[in-house]
């Protein structure tokens, strides 16, 4: 997927909502568009499935210019999850999930089988949930159905627009973990919009930081944390406490008590921020030591997991 000089301006607006964005998104990657509200991240997302047309530049999905494709057909191949969920309240859970398969005219048996499979995948008991209506579900359950509906026809691309913004923190966390698990299994390319730094760090392979319609940094979570491209990026992250938390947490709290093949060492009482700096410039894993004794090993994944707690 590729953005080439994409510019969007809404009618009656004096500035560009998305301003000359050029960006490549690797197939199979989990990319998070991060920034404050009004920075153009949702707008950029919606150019991918043609819900918004750029006034300049092109968006390419799977090598073809979105403008040249039939947008109705394109959208059936691109999963779409929104914050407001948008389940159809006059349809059962099963019928909601079956929307895209029915549009694609799958046969009845295959659809029924797929609906049950998807409900299991998002951890809702098919027996109990199939025939329910959206109003009978909690917010978290509704969004599970929203995710199931979006991936029903195995899209190669999944767009998620602040999907977990309206559910409480505990539910959000489990939805995040499950989303990550599901898309990893499916090898789907995910583009995920959020203003929540923790969420971005937890999910992303690549974080694209946006401000006023422009991309200011596109890099791995590690690089965004340790080498912010602009003071703005540092502020954005800092205001969400992540750096401070990294400063406060010790390596020994995040390490794995296993002996790896690492040759470089870090002190068990060093901060996680220090370990991040080391990862960026050197090895992927470090041996954790105290008083010359080897206690275990730590990698970037462990730092991430610690932030998740």
């Amino acid at each position, binding site marked *: 997927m590729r953005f080439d000089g994409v510019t969007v301006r809404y009618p009656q607006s004096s500035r560009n909502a998305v301003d000359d964005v050029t960006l490549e998104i690797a197939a199979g990657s989990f990319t998070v568009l991060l920034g404050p509200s009004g920075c153009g991240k949702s707008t950029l997302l919606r150019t991918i*499935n043609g819900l918004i047309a750029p006034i300049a530049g092109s968006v390419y999905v799977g090598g073809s210019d979105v403008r040249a494709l039939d947008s109705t057909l394109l959208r059936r191949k691109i999963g779409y999850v929104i914050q407001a*969920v948008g389940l159809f309240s006059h349809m059962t859970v099963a019928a909601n999930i079956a929307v895209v398969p029915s549009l694609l005219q799958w046969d009845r048996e295959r659809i029924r089988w797929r609906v049950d499979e998807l409900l299991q995948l998002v951890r809702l008991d098919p027996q109990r949930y199939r025939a329910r209506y959206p109003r009978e579900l909690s917010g978290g359950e509704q969004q599970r159905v929203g995710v199931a509906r979006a991936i029903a026809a195995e899209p190669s691309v999944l767009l998620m627009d602040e999907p977990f913004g309206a559910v409480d923190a505990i539910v959000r966390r489990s939805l995040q973990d499950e989303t990550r698990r599901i898309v990893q299994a499916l090898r789907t390319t995910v583009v995920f919009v959020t203003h929540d730094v923790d969420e971005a760090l937890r999910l992303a392979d690549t974080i694209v930081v946006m401000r006023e319609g422009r991309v200011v940094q596109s890099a791995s979570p590690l690089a965004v944390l340790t080498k912010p491209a602009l003071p703005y990026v540092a502020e954005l992250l800092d205001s969400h406490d992540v750096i401070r938390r990294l400063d406060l947490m010790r390596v020994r709290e995040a390490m794995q008590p296993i002996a790896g093949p690492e040759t470089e060492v870090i002190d068990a009482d060093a901060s996680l921020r220090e370990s991040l700096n080391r990862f960026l410039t050197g090895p992927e894993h470090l041996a954790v030591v105290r008083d010359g004794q080897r206690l275990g090993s730590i990698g970037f994944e462990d730092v991430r997991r610690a932030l998740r707690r």
Partner: protein
Amino acid sequence: MTYFLGHLPELGSQTVTHLALVFTALAIALAVAFPLGTFAARRPRSAPAVFGTLGVVYAVPSLALLAILVQYIGLGFWPVIIVLAAYAQFILVRNIAAGLRTVPDAAIDAAKGLGMSPLQRFWRVEVPLATPVILGGIRLATVALIAIATLGGYVGAGGLGQHIFFGLQRQYIAETLAGSIPAALLAILADGVFRGLERLAVRRITG
């Protein structure tokens, strides 16, 4: 009462004619009102013009409109149908437009994003979600049309109005009542049936 019982078979067939007038007109009115209501809902700026025009039609006394139509197309079934259909427009269009506007933006965004064509989105998402409000319009229109269809008695279209018309002419109150009481009962019955449907539709959508 004796008059009523003595004319029972005739009243039965007139009730059927009456309902045929109402529902034929309603079907035609709906076929016109759907596109108009959708247009008004999609282009809010055009709505005042649409409602204004239909409001004028609605304001013309139905008997006057009928008299004018009879001058041009003669007596019988069709002038009554046209009056009824025209009169129903205002109510139907207003409710269809209002109903479509109650459809949540999120549902429309999701329908588009999932790859429904505009027609699929309209029939599978927008209309079902607008159904309670649209049914409310159909209920009001039906009740009004049952009353107005009594005018059919004046122009040879038949229906329950025939008894009312002849009864008035002959100042024979029993005959008038034999037409007007069933007409009133029909209107009350239709109101109840549509209210029930509305409640079902609302429950289906909002619980």
